[in-house]
């Protein structure tokens, strides 16, 4: 029994390491974009290998835990949640990589005024708060905190939806903005996807802690 608890703890630790790593990747990717820091962007791209390596490590640990200890009930939900969360985090890592890649491809910083109108900073802050909620919820085994994610995600969704009209208007007014607008549109879309992935993670934490499946349900 002692051994299985150690195994589970090690897995939890690996999960947290992955969460922190992806959170840092996202923060650095966004910072590299907002400050047009190509060195930082390259660092993010370089660290993508670590995300992939940890992804594989966690997958192997899950396989071993399942094979050796055949968990049931909460332990089974834990392992199912960890596997799904790991996969979602890996995809968040991919999005961070893509954001950083945009910085290295583009020659000049994007138009700061357009960034402001699109509320990208607000969107990013909301996404980061969401990662905090899932992180706290997971560490403290508190599904209430994880549930806060859903409300926050609405902010992300609204900014994403509004971006279509704003970009259309701004580009009509000033066609020179087209290149920046396309980049920003792509960043917004990525952040929106990250928001969805964090929402998925929150759902898995709730499943693990409360045995409640809330996927594909509308949460008010």
């Amino acid at each position, binding site marked *: 029994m002692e051994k299985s608890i150690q195994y589970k703890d090690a897995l939890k630790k690996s999960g947290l390491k992955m969460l922190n790593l992806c959170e840092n990747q996202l923060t650095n990717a966004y910072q590299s974009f907002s400050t047009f820091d190509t060195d930082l962007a390259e660092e993010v791209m370089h660290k993508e290998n670590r995300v992939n390596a940890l992804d594989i490590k966690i997958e192997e640990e899950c396989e071993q835990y399942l094979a050796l*200890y055949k*968990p*049931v*009930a*909460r332990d089974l939900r834990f392992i199912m949640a960890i596997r799904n969360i790991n996969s979602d985090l890996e995809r968040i890592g991919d999005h961070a990589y893509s954001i950083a890649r945009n910085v290295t491809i583009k020659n000049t910083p994007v138009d700061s005024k357009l960034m402001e109108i699109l509320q990208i900073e607000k969107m990013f802050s909301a996404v980061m708060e969401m990662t905090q909620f899932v992180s706290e919820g997971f560490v403290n085994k508190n599904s209430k905190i994880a549930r806060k994610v859903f409300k926050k995600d609405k902010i992300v969704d609204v900014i994403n939806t509004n971006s279509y009209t704003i970009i259309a208007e701004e580009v009509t007014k000033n066609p020179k903005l087209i290149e920046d607008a396309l980049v920003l549109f792509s960043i917004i879309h990525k952040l929106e996807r990250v928001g969805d992935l964090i929402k998925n993670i929150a759902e898995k934490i709730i499943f693990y802690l409360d*045995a*409640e*499946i809330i996927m594909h349900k509308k949460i008010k």
Partner: protein
Amino acid sequence: MTTTTKNRKIEKIPQENILDNASKISIKEMDIWYGAFHAIKEVSMKINPNTVTAFIGPSGCGKSTFLRLFNRMNDYIESFHFDGKIKIDGKNIYGKKTNIEELRKKVGMVFQKPNPFPKSIFENVAYGLRIQGIKDKKIIAERVENSLKQVALWEEVKNDLKKSALALSGGQQQRLCIARTLAVQPSVILMDEPTSALDPISTASIEDLIFKLKEKYTIIIVTHNMQQASRISDYTAFFYMGNLVEYNKTELIFTKPEKKQTENYISGKFG
């Protein structure tokens, strides 16, 4: 009765009308003592026909005692006494008019260790029939063949029916013991850790057999093997210190047990 817990439907086992005649077995407020030791504490339960019900719990929790209640095997223990009601097919099995031999014909039992008689394979299966007074050789031969076919042993032994049953492997011996039980045409089969002395291959064949047999019989199995309980049973009852802690559909017991004690036991955190 179906209730909804959050978003998952949980089919509760109705506890009202516990002694109704629709259940195969119904037990109401059963207490069992061995002398002053209170082995089973006010347990009520209904068991549906053609299902496999697993009794799980740590050693000494009372699950085997409870199982042996169903064919009055506890009667042999001097200090045994009980209070409560138990009906099989609507009939009180501890009633004054109960014929114990008839009861045991109806409620067969398979034990932990295969216990074939030191007789031929054929005679082992025919034993119960001869005890019942059946003399027609044709009927006996048919029943023996049919029983051995049900336990998937016929093809392996049909040319060696006169061979000693003791020469069979452990897994074959256990299947033979099940065939011996089936020969007298019971409707309930009690199994007390039937695979604990067997290797994984023999265990798998007994488990397959149990799955097949539930079409015709009601099976109650005591097991210490959690995976086995989850693999083969429809319902699982968790006993702890003489109490029935939780009794529900197996898929719910092993995914979302209602009681923390059940969760800890099935996860191997105690017991």
